[in-house]
């Protein structure tokens, strides 16, 4: 296979990854720092026979991709924190009707309009808990342009496989970074499971996989979708037992498949006495800091979350090695660290390291932090 290395921007890599994954419908609304994705899609979609539409806001953007998804397309929208806030009702709807959709969220400094061109990791918890009600979301976090490309393909595949919204949680720096990437590999694509027999068709009836086999609109199955609690037929019910079973199934269809969904990257945690846990752009500084500490003879290690949600405490515990000290650097006032504290309780020393001035955490800052805090 010939290598095809090209210089690409993070946002462009998301757009190209989506096209490689079979995405043929994009609806979006301009917002810094994700606008380039819409711009690339506006140019590229017609070339591949797909559809691009600029909607009137982020509310309609997510609803339009839900509609296109129900009609059978692989779909993407892209936004940043303020737009992602507007998408929350649609996100909950997609969870409830089990519409495969992918949302790229490029984090900028918030809250509110904040600092539009400055990086942050302040929207981590919004991806998990932004919409109301009990619900489950898959969240993937790239740390490079190459990974933005690969994880976009993976996000589309997971959305189609599990019929669930998937969020790609990027940030301003990854979005605007330019790096060489290899796009020569032909990706393995996953297609949603479709029904083959109209007799006794029940869109929300599931087998052991707990993933429903729902027909695309216009294929003769006469499906009914609703955000109301619904039974296997897809029709509304106020039956508490049906409601409970539905919400449990929405959880279990993901949690029964954590081996397939969850990915970490761990670096020398086995013998480490200090482990850094991070995601996204911050993990790149961690990687360099670990290298420096090792060269100084310090047994340092790193655990990088590629999948942020579902978050499985047992897996984190066993992936973390035996380090006495866990440092959690992040570009917010402490969000990932809440989950890490939940995993370890008082059994380890959990040290938050936060930066909220709109700049990145540098490797040198991590080294200084370790020194100053006597870690």
């Amino acid at each position, binding site marked *: 296979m010939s290598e095809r290395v090209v210089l690409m921007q993070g946002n462009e890599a998301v757009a190209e990854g989506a096209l490689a994954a079979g995405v043929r419908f994009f*609806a979006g609304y301009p917002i810094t720092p994700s606008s380039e994705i819409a711009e690339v899609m506006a140019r590229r979609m017609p070339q591949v026979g797909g*559809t691009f*539409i600029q909607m*009137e806001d982020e509310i309609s953007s997510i609803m339009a991709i839900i*509609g296109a998804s129900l009609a059978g397309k692989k779909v993407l929208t892209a936004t940043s924190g303020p737009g992602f806030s507007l998408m929350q*009702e649609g996100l909950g*709807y997609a969870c409830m009707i089990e519409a495969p959709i992918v949302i790229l969220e490029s984090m900028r400094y918030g809250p509110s309009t904040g600092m539009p061109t400055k990086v942050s990791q302040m929207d981590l918890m919004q991806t998990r808990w932004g919409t109301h009600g009990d619900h489950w979301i898959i969240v993937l976090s790239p740390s490079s342009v190459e990974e933005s490309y690969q994880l976009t393909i993976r996000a589309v595949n997971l959305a189609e496989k599990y019929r669930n919204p998937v969020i790609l949680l990027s940030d301003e720096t990854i979005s605007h970074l330019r790096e060489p990437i290899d796009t020569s590999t032909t990706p393995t694509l996953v297609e949603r499971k479709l029904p083959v027999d109209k007799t006794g068709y029940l869109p929300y009836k599931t087998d052991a996989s707990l993933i429903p086999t729902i027909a695309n609109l216009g294929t003769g199955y006469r499906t*009914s979708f609703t955000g109301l609690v619904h039974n296997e037929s897809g029709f509304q019910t106020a039956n508490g037992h049906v409601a409970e079973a539905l919400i449990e199934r929405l959880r279990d269809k993901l949690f029964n498949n954590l081996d397939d969904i969850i990915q970490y990257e761990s670096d020398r945690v086995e013998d480490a006495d200090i482990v850094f846990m991070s995601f996204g752009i911050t993990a790149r500084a961690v990687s360099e800091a670990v290298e420096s500490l090792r060269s100084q003879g310090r047994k340092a290690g790193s655990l990088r979350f590629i999948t942020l949600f579902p978050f499985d405490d047992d897996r984190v515990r066993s992936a973390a090695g035996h380090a006495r000290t866990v440092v959690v650097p992040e570009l917010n006032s402490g969000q990932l660290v809440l989950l890490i504290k939940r995993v370890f309780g008082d059994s380890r020393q959990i040290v938050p390291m936060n930066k909220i001035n709109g700049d990145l955490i540098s490797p040198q800052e991590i080294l200084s932090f370790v020194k100053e805090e006597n870690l």
Partner: protein
Amino acid sequence: MKLDALRSERLPNIWCPGCGNGIVLRALLEAIDQLKLDPDKVVLVSGIGCSSRAPAYTAFDNVHTLHGRAIPVATGIKLANPDLTVIVVTGDGDSSAIGGNHLIHAARRDVDITVIVFNNFNYGMTGGQGSPLTPVSSITTTAPNGTLDRPFDLVNLAAGAGATYVARSGIYFTKHMVDHIRKAIAHHGFSLVDAVAQCPTYFGRFNKKGSAGQMLVSQKDWMVLKSVADKKTPEELVGKTVIGEFVNIERNPAQSGEAPKEQA
């Protein structure tokens, strides 16, 4: 109309006795039947409210979305599969308040969908609150002394936003309503029908409009056909609602949201 257009197992419906929604739904099904559309290629999309429950009583593919959001979902469906006939079933509040922005932008794009507004002048599902189509001075639960806000003229709103087919009808004029819904669906481009219904439970009771039957029959007193209205002076039309076809423009493909040709 063939009865197989309804899912009989989903009946009876949730609507109150005397509600006008059933008449509009019947007119819609009648229009679809007259057009001899392939029922497998018809998708009904609705928002939230009494009228938005209508699609789930039909045997077509149907998508009950969020409050105000039926139009963007319908836009996504239509653009993803242009072979489908996509019809939005919505109410006055759903389409003109929370969904008002989506309504004007879909009209501007001239996306080839049909919006049927079941207009009963109030929010029935939540107990009779005022909507942007509630006439000024009317009593609602959120305007106990009469609403001060002026209503939208939905027909002019849609026309001004660029809709290429706009009509209004009333449930008393059932054949008129069927004809205009049929023409709206057959129209190539964005079409809207303001289907004036009634809510005897809330709007009618609060505003002393009489029984459901009296409300229905009264439409012939306060509605006037456009062909008749065109010959009258504005003074003669005070207090009257004009029904008929207001906009019917053959779409210009260059400006109508047609998918662009593949580029090299």
